[in-house]
């Protein structure tokens, strides 16, 4: 939804921020979000937080396995 000047409200901008970061929205929508961000400090904060949260989630994927669990899996594979 845009107003008569082609501007989108904060709710529209925020809804698209993660897809915006993924380059998963159309060039037209990207331009609308860019324009909104050029004057909205709150949504710039939302954008920075979205980047931080994404980076935080990516750090949660560390591969960890207790030695006893790994040993059970290895025995399982041996017995296949």
């Amino acid at each position, binding site marked *: 939804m845009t107003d008569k000047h082609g501007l989108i409200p904060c709710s529209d901008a925020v809804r698209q921020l993660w897809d915006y970061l993924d380059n998963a929205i159309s060039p037209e929508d990207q331009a609308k979000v860019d324009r909104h961000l050029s004057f909205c400090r709150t949504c710039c904060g939302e954008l920075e*937080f979205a980047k931080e949260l994404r980076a935080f989630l*990516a750090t949660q994927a*560390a591969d960890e396995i207790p030695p006893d669990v790994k040993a059970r899996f290895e025995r399982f594979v041996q017995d296949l």
Partner: protein
Amino acid sequence: MVRVQDRTKESFQRLASAELAGLYSLARRLVRDGAEDLVQEALLHAYRSFETLKADAAAGPWLKSILVNVFRDQLRRKARSVQELPVEQVENFSLYRTLVEQDPLPYSDTLHHDYLQAFSKEDVREVLMRLPEIYRAPLVLRYMDGFATKEIARMLDTPLGTVLARLHRGRKRFESEMWAYAQQTGLLLRETVT
């Protein structure tokens, strides 16, 4: 490196052994209980279809893809209908704004960063487990394991548009559950004390 042309049991053992930590970690992000069973079933499926592995470099994603297929089939077997969240129920929540308004760490100069850092990996897992599986799985696969949305749609056998919608609602729900979890467990008080 394992030569996948050599599809012997021994080569499968070597390949699987190198990927066990990744498989188990992914399984623990997908299910609260039964991560070991999920990995074992995935290993069994993978061994039976070892010849479909095309390239050495694809071994990790190939095994994870099989594990996600097994997870998806387990969900279907439960025959439990998981209701989609109404859009309006999660749409208006913003963790960013909530933190600004509630200021739970008044002495912090980097409030949003410090808030996230208060969560250990186990805390994040507990928050993930509060999400219905249909939202949890796309979120985990996209933002923790780095799969493309098209690949997630294929693995979960779900239309791309549905995956995108669930990712959006899953993100919102995750943010709101992060806030609720910290409130309910006194997470920030623990951080202040230690």
